[in-house]
Structure formats: C-alpha cells, structure tokens
C-alpha cells in the first residue's frame, strides 16, 4: 500500500450508452494507477440454461440464438453441433459449407464493429462512422443469405434452414470485393496512425503463459501468440476442407489484439471466396422432408465447439432420452475474457482502461460519482461529481 491517505473506488458501468452489455467494473485507484479491479456481473442474467431444460430440442434452437445479438449464428451452430454429436446425425456437405459461410460473414461484421468501437473510444470518431457504414454491407449480405439482417436463425439440427440460390453468389462476391478494398484502407490507418499507435501499443499486455493460465480465448489469446482457434484445433463443419491461416501476433498488447482482428477479416474474405467457388451441390438437410427430423434424442451427451468472433464458444448438452434436454451448458468466450482478463488492467492508467476493455471486445463508460475510502478508518463515503470538482484535490 502506498503512502497516500486515500484509495479511490471508481464504479464503471453498469449503465451507459456506450456499453454493449450491462457490466460493472469497480476500479480501485491510487492517483492515476489502477491497483485493483472487481468485475460485477449478472445485470443481464436471464437464466437461458434453466429455460433450455424446460423447452424441446427444437424450441431451444431459437432460444440459444438469442443468447447474443451480435454472434447469434455461432450460438445456433454450436448448439446444433452438440445435438448432432449426441444423436450421431451426419450433416450434408452443402449445409456444412453454408454454415461456414454465414459464420464467416458474422465474424467480419463483428470484427468491424469492435474495430469501430475502439476507434470511437480512442476519439477517432470519423473512423468509427466510416467503418460502421461499411459494416452495413456485411449485414446486407447476411440478410441476403439467411433472410434476416441480425438474428439469422439459419442453423437447423442436421443442416440449415435455407438454400443459397446461384444468382446470389455474384452479389456476395461483388460486395466482398468492396469490403476487402475498404479493409485495406483501414489496415493502413490502424498500422500507421500515430494516435492509434500511442493509445493501444504496450497497453494491457498479456504474455503467452499468462493468456493460457487465465484461459483467454479468441483474438485476445491469439494476440499473445497462442495458436488457439477451434477451426484449427478441433475442426467442425467445412473447416477441415477449407484452407486458411491462424493469425497470431507476438506483442500481446491491445494493438496486437485489434490487428489480429483486421487480419482475420482478410482470412474470412478468402474463406468466403473459397466457399462460393467450391460450394457442393445436394440437399441442405439429411432427410427428404423436414418433418422426418427426429423428435426424441438418445440418452447421452454431446459437445459443440465453434470459433465465435470473440473466441471459443462451447455447448455441452446432456439428454435423458426425452424430448427436452436434461442440461444445456453454455460457456461464452466473453465469460473467460472479461472476468479472467482483468489482470491486464492492473498498474495501468485510468485512461487506458477503456482501451484494454474494448480490446477484449466489449465496451466501457465514464464515471458519474466516486467512492472515497479512508484507509485509516476503512470508511466509505460517496461524493457527487459536482462536489468533487468544486472541492480541493484529495490526498
């Protein structure tokens, strides 16, 4: 503990227009340095796992997709993979490729979103607006393939719910070319702009062993040179046939995590091009009619793992042989990255906390009031912001 008389607690969140999710960070600061971070979660706890045990396997398909708004297709894909693993259902090749296509579109728009949010947090608002404008093209493509701009509800047990007519392929190719051109421009900005570099480089550093010990996943782990990508270590759907590179970087800082995402957008674009050129023909579900799909599933367990835009998404489904699952465990990547990643915020400046937090892929807010803890008496008192700015400095 320092010689200072006061340790100030700054509650960040849970409500703020810039926050993606309602989460609260309680920062204990000593001057400008953060000495302790407590994550307070649960503001948005809806009991999806409890609810999933009380609905049928097919109803759950639409429930689990609503766990997350941004990456809903991967939630569906992970759940159906677990149920297929449980029941031993073979997915037709065309459906496996179409699933990968939608998941890659989702990865592109999710990565562009967080890159845009990071630009906004840094104060580069024109970049935020340009990137969000271009993200809209990807949303259009997602609507073109799945029928919905945000909630795709594209996955089905055994296959997908919609086929892709050949006349749409040219439209996708045209828009993908445009996005690739724009992303080249953004990559240049992200690697050369002095303000972006100063704000993100060497901020919130995690070494390779730290990233593994704290179970960090997705671009956060890959930014610390961990080759952890479920598409590569546990291939699913069509990923064992599609050539792609796993992007990693050595730096381990916030900038590396953002650059991993930029390079992954290019990888996703090349994956989409491959899929469109090698799309197999044939059915999209293994049965002649969707009504022939099984109503009951055998006793046992199934595991579904996919590489969501934020990292490994895992579903563990248990069945007792009835129409409803016995237990559905959902482990989203943000659970690990947010709760276990806070060690990167220690000994950093308060101003860097938003940058580190956004580099995990959620968001953060400013503060309205502070709690002051008197270290002699251990007494806490709340001071309104207005009073704080009028009074003489603390300590």
């Amino acid at each position: 503990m320092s010689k200072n008389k006061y340790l100030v607690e700054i509650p960040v969140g849970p409500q703020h227009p810039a926050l993606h999710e309602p989460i609260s960070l309680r920062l204990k600061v000593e001057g400008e340095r953060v000495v302790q971070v407590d994550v307070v979660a649960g503001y948005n706890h809806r009991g999806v796992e409890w609810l999933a045990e009380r609905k049928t396997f097919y109803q759950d398909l639409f429930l689990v997709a609503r766990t997350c708004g941004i990456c809903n297709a991967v939630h569906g894909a992970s759940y159906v993979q677990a149920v297929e693993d449980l029941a031993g259902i073979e997915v037709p090749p065309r459906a496996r490729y179409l699933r990968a296509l939608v998941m890659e579109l989702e990865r592109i728009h999710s990565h562009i979103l967080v890159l845009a949010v990071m630009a906004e947090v840094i104060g580069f608002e024109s970049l935020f607006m340009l990137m969000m404008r271009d993200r809209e093209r990807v949303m259009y493509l997602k609507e073109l393939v799945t029928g919905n701009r945000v909630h795709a509800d594209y996955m089905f047990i055994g296959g997908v719910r919609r086929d892709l007519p050949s006349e749409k392929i040219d439209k996708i190719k045209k828009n993908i070319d445009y996005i690739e051109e724009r992303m080249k421009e953004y990559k240049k900005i992200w690697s050369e702009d002095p303000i972006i570099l100063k704000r993100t480089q060497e901020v919130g550093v995690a070494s390779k062993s730290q990233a593994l010990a704290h179970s960090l996943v997705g671009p956060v782990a890959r930014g610390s040179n961990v080759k952890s990508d479920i598409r590569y270590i546990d291939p699913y759907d069509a990923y064992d046939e599609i050539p792609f590179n796993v992007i990693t970087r050595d730096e381990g800082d916030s900038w590396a995590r953002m650059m991993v995402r930029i390079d992954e957008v290019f990888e996703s674009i090349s994956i989409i091009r491959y899929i469109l050129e090698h799309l197999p023909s044939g059915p999209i579900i293994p049965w002649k009619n969707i009504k022939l799909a099984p109503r009951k599933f055998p006793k046992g367990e199934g595991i579904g793992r996919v590489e969501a835009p934020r990292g490994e998404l895992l579903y563990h489904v248990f069945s007792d042989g009835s129409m409803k699952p016995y237990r559905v465990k959902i482990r989203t990547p943000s659970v690990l990255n947010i709760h276990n990643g806070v060690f990167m915020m220690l000994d950093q400046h308060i101003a860097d906390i938003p940058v580190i937090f956004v580099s995990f892929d959620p968001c953060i807010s400013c503060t309205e009031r502070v709690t002051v803890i008197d270290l002699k008496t251990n007494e806490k008192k709340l001071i309104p912001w207005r009073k704080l700015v009028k009074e003489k400095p603390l300590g």
Partner: protein
Amino acid sequence: MVLKDLLSDYGELKKYRKDNRFHITVAPTLIREITSKLVKEYKDGIYISTITPVDLIKEGVIEVNYEFQILPEKTFLVVKTRIPRDKSEIDSIVDILPGAKVLEQEAYDLMGVYFRGNPYLRKPFLLPEHMAQETPLRKDWKPSKR
C-alpha cells in the same frame, strides 16, 4: 508423453464420437493431482475450457465435468467426477489454473458446488440479491417469492 499413458493410472480413457475428444471418470479427490500433472506435462499448451456441473437427482450426485483443451495434441479432455448432492464440495484448482476462477464462481452460484480453497467464491455472483441462498440449476429448485 501421450495423454493415454499420462492418465493410465487413473482409469480408462474413453473416446467421444469425434476422434480428438476423450473423457475419463475419476474420484473427486484426484482432481487437483490430475490438473497439476496435465499443467506440468503440457506447460504453455493447456487451458481449462469450462467446468460443467450436472445435477443427477435420481442418483443423488452432482457430476462435475472439467473440460480441458490441450493445444499441442489438438485434444479435448473431459475429466468427470461425482460428488454427493447433500455435501457438494470439491477441492478448487484455481491456484493451479487461474482460468478456473470464473468457472468455479459460476458453478457455485448456479449449482451450489462449493470449491474448497477458492477465495473468490461469492453468492450471488450472477443471480439477483433476493436469490442469494438459491441454486436454480438444481433439479429440485422452485422459484421463490420475492
């Protein structure tokens, strides 16, 4: 050393439907020993993916599934153990793998599995304040009045 030889003392390593996914059932007292052995063998190549507790009410036990990803071998390992429902306690592995912190917190909050030696456990963690004493993922849980 391959995974099969490493865990040969603890029981039979069974395969899931997919070739790279395995599971093994062990006694709850062996969890710390197995985790330490895995971390030592696969240094900088293993992380804990999740902890899945399942309430098997008919058998009167809670099955705790520890799920590890081993990166160099591209293998997914589920270590299963069973603890009694009425005394649902097990040793924490948070000092061996810090990544288990939030997974143990969540399992304690929703299923009531107490992890001995985890200083971060608190209730409620995800649940609202009025449900602080409740464990909603247990099969005999009924919603209480607020």
